[in-house]
């Protein structure tokens, strides 16, 4: 194995996790060092691939695999597939992930579970990298679930708090609901293709006539149904998309993400901004060949993404918890990415995924820095922090502007790519306007957050001060990336290469990202439409937000309570699921046990009484009888 082996990228974090769990946990410094080395080592190895990957025509790839499981004719491999698409993800996961590791050194300093935190973090990185380099559906599902369990450990890190435990359960179970569909989809795809390997599947899909061949014949109720591969694929694809909706928190499986903010803030930055939630988007890009031939599947994806983007933005407007605003903003941005894929733009989706990872991780870490200083999540207990925490403020400001899509920050380029896609889609006024309206809302809630937290009058308790360098350094790096991940660093050419290598070969040719005057003006206008009301209400104080809130009455409550979706789910769990369980239990006790068993038990009671006399309570006698029997049988034989 050479020093730049892709297997090292994947397995170093796993080794680190085990080393910490079974030995190093007593030595905090050593534990965190091992964890950091594992993730940064992966980043460095990944970097060695970059020149080659970016210089080619997009066909660059590394593959290696072992046979993991063989049963009957079924063989599953476990392998490594690194092409342009997974290379970008690797860079994001190890790079942004690595910065978050550094930040955690400061943030978690002095926490009694310091070593456990880093062990979980390394386990998470291993799980996530497995998704990125997976070469088949089975492997990706394995890591999909492992990401689920490692995020369970991280979200429930403060396991003595009931709310943290509830949140970790909610995350795991909501994801399992999505994975129910995912697994079904995989079962169907395996049936149709006879393989789970991405490359082989893609080849089959693109084969002439494959889609019109029959995939399954069913005889139901006298009718004879023949399903073609085409039909089969969109159903399976939609089921796989359920898994994506779970991990990438798309409506209606989004409910776990805001609650998951119960985890330590670095966790929110790592898994809920940069990596785990991006897994779904990545998966869609990875298996785009499944969706491309099916208009129905693409439409479902586009509309789910579109709705999530809008819906989450409306909720973010009315939240007071700084991390929750960011959580709903994440939902909204993920909605953009998913929608972009539904509209055929895997390349812009991946571009937005990367830039979003930079500025959203920076925002979460900045929020963590603020929370660290004022010991509260509530923006009503902050304000005027910019003088006290200048580094946090400036990096936060940059990332906010990037998220709002203001030129020349990176978010402008990636979001413009998506908005351009919606305008060119020719799919009706909703697809045309709603993403743009959502962008205005984005500017509003982000500027509201900025004003409430850093400007205006101080409302905090105590004496907040700037965070230590381990925490501010990652902020600076991420903010810098948020600026230069646009064409400042990357020339237009590099961006186009980026898009080439993240796009499946067969996808439609893409529109170039526009940096012309019209687009810039439009972006500024969108920003201003959201930012000015936010400034008037929360910066300048011309408009009293409380009056607006009162005037909006029910609408505000509706948004503040997140469209009451959690309440609906809770009702279902309390009433439907609990009652089914209770009914089954009652059925078991009364019907099955009562009638069938005690009836027969009653008749047998007489026999039982007789038996009791024979037993005479002496095991010794029984054993002697038994041995005598054995001896007799042996004698018979001889």
């Amino acid at each position, binding site marked *: 194995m050479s020093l730049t082996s892709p297997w090292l990228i994947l397995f170093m974090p796993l080794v680190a996790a085990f080393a910490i769990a079974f030995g190093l946990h007593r030595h905090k410094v050593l534990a965190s060092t091992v964890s950091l080395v594992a993730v940064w080592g992966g980043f460095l190895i990944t970097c060695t691939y970059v020149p080659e990957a970016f210089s080619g025509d997009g066909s660059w790839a590394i593959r290696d695999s072992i046979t*993991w*499981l*063989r*049963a*009957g*004719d*079924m063989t599953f491999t476990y392998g490594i597939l690194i092409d342009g698409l997974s290379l970008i993800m690797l860079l994001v996961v190890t790079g942004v992930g690595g910065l978050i590791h550094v930040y955690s050194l400061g943030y978690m300093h002095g926490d009694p579970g310091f070593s456990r935190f880093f062990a979980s973090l390394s386990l998470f990185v291993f799980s996530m990298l497995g998704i990125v380099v997976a070469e088949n559906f089975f492997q990706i*599902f*394995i*890591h999909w*679930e*492992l990401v689920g369990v490692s995020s369970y450990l991280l979200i*429930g890190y403060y*396991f*003595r*708090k*009931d709310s943290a*435990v*509830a949140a970790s*359960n909610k995350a*795991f*179970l909501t994801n*399992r*609901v999505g*994975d*129910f569909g995912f*697994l*079904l989809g995989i*079962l*169907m795809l*395996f*049936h149709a293709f006879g393989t789970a390997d991405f490359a082989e599947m893609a080849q089959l899909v693109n084969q002439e006539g494959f889609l019109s061949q029959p995939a399954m014949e069913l005889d139901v109720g006298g009718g004879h149904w023949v399903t073609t591969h085409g039909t089969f694929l969109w159903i399976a694809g939609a089921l796989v998309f359920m898994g994506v909706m779970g991990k990438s928190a798309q409506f209606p499986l989004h409910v776990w993400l805001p609650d998951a903010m119960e985890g330590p803030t670095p966790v929110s930055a790592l898994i809920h901004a940069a990596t785990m939630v991006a897994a779904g988007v990545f998966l869609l890009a990875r298996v785009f060949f499944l969706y491309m031939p099916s208009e129905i599947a693409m439409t479902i994806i586009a509309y789910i993404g579109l709705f999530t983007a809008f819906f989450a933005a409306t909720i973010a407007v009315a939240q007071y918890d700084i991390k929750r605003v960011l959580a709903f903003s994440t939902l909204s941005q993920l909605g953009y990415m998913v929608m972009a894929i539904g509209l055929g733009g895997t390349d812009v989706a991946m571009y937005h995924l990367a830039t979003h990872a930079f500025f959203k991780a920076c925002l979460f870490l900045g929020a963590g820095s603020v929370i660290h200083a004022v010991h509260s999540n509530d923006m009503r207990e902050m304000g005027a922090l910019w003088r006290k925490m200048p580094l946090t403020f400036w990096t936060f400001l940059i990332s906010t502007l990037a998220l709002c899509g203001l030129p020349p920050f990176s978010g402008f380029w990636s979001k413009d790519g998506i908005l351009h896609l919606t305008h060119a889609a020719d799919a009706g006024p909703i697809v045309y306007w709603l993403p743009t309206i959502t962008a205005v809302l984005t500017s509003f809630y982000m500027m509201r957050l900025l004003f409430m937290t850093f400007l205006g009058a101080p409302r905090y308790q105590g004496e907040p001060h700037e965070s230590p360098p381990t925490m501010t350094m990652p902020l600076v790096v991420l903010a810098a990336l948020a600026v230069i991940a646009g064409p400042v660093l990357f020339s237009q050419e590099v961006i186009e290469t980026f898009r080439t290598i993240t796009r499946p070969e067969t996808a439609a040719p893409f529109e170039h990202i526009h940096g012309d005057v019209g687009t810039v003006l439009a972006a500024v206008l969108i920003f201003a439409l959201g930012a000015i009301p936010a400034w008037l209400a929360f910066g300048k104080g011309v408009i009293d937000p409380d009056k607006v809130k009162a005037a909006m009455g029910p609408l505000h409550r509706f948004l503040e309570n997140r469209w009451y979706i959690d309440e609906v789910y809770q009702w279902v769990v309390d009433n439907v*699921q*609990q009652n089914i*369980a*209770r009914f*089954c*239990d009652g059925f*078991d006790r009364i019907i*099955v*046990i009562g009638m*069938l*068993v005690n009836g*027969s*038990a009653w008749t*047998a009671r007489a026999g*039982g009484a007789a*038996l009791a006399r024979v*037993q005479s*309570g002496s*095991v*010794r006698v*029984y*054993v*002697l009888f*038994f*041995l005598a029997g*054995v001896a007799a049988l042996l004698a*018979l*034989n001889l």
Partner: protein
Amino acid sequence: MDLLTLITFSPLVGVLAILFLPKNSKDAARTVAAAATFIPLVLATKMWMDFDTTTAAYQFVERVPWITSLGVDYHVGVDGLSVPLVWLTSLLLFLGVFASWKIEQGVKGYMMLLLLLEVGINGVFCSLDFFLFYVFWEIMLLPMYFLIGIWGGPRREYAAIKFFLYTLAGSVLMLLAIVGLYLAVDGRLESPFSIPELSALVSSGQLTGSNLVNEGVLFGWPFLKWVFVFLFIGFAIKVPVVPFHTWLPDAHVEAPTAISVILAGILLKLGTYGILRINLGMFPNVAPDFAFIGAMLGLIAIIYGACVAMAQTDFKRLVAYSSVSHMGYVLLGACAFTNEGLNGAAMQMFTHGTSSALLFLIVGVAYDRAHHREIDGFGGLAKLAPVYLGVTSIGMFAALGLPGMSGFVSEALVLFGAWQTYPVMASLAVLGIVITAAFILWTLQRVFLGPLNEKYDSENFPDVTGRELFTMIPLAFLCVLFGVVPGILLDILAPTMTQLTAALGGGG
């Protein structure tokens, strides 16, 4: 004497030794039992090592005429299906002795029964003669009855009688079927009970029972169908398949920890072993008529068992119902008649054997300290017992089918195999993994996480002891090992399962 005979009967040496120990020599009895269960474990390990995985033929075969007047042979041998189960039996009985270390009342009798139980179980797995199979099956029954009825909890007598009656009913059906087969063979075989020879005769279509009943039809059904159903019900009670399952929660709740471990880990597998070895292996031409019903029963067990488990407040009852659910996968996979399904079923028998045994040990640890099993009566134990939490997490995550744990591989194989034959049923079975995750995480939450229940402190709830760890670590290790390297197990199963699939005419 050859290997299998030694494995089966070596615990008897322990029985004899304990019998002649002076009264009240508790530690001596325990030590002898540990030694007497260690011998079969070593031998079974050797058997696994020496087993030739390239063939589906029975190995380590011994055959001596026994009851010549009936043509009964002492005929033993193992194939890929039985080797892992014999090994698991030997392991769990060995660990079971240590899990019983704290039993103070009637130690000698308890240990002797435990050793007899091992003789019976390994005897069943090794038997290649149906008569011998039945004899061992019955040998197993009584020790179990006494172990629950004498050393059990408050309602032990009720539970023991219920266990006894159910199992007896199953035995009676099996006996009827064996007698029927014997009569139908009508002297055409020199050894009319030989499982391989009977199988060959039945599959060749020459055994119809037409010598017994008119044209081999009895009450509108072919004779063999009746035999098949009698045997199936006999085994289904042991699995247990819903609706024959109600003896199981009661038996588990009342049984001492080690007995629950053996019950869940091994005894349930005897039922599915019988279904695979006898129902499918011996009657491949009848089995397809019942495949749909069998798969349906498997599906019902998966969903129903999980739903009932969700409503339980007693920790041990919850684990017992989760066993019902998990054993459903075995039935579903087996009845799909595909290579993946059968491999998955056979693997699930082993993986559930390790994970459920681990879970019952875990429940035992909590019960020994708190003297109750109410899930809501715990809370926040993670603080007091971090090592205990660690082991429990492995057991729980193995049970919920987390990848990297053995249960995932076997359940996935079952689902892949079943989907090819029964897509709708397999799809519904996937629901089981969601429900299972729910009740397992809620249990973990209510017992270990959240604020600490004030009733407990480090005095009355210390972390696991060395002895407890010694019983749990091997099982936890196996849960992970076969999840990461499933090939170790699948390689040994594969030839046998491929042969069985071919006999059943299934594809895949």
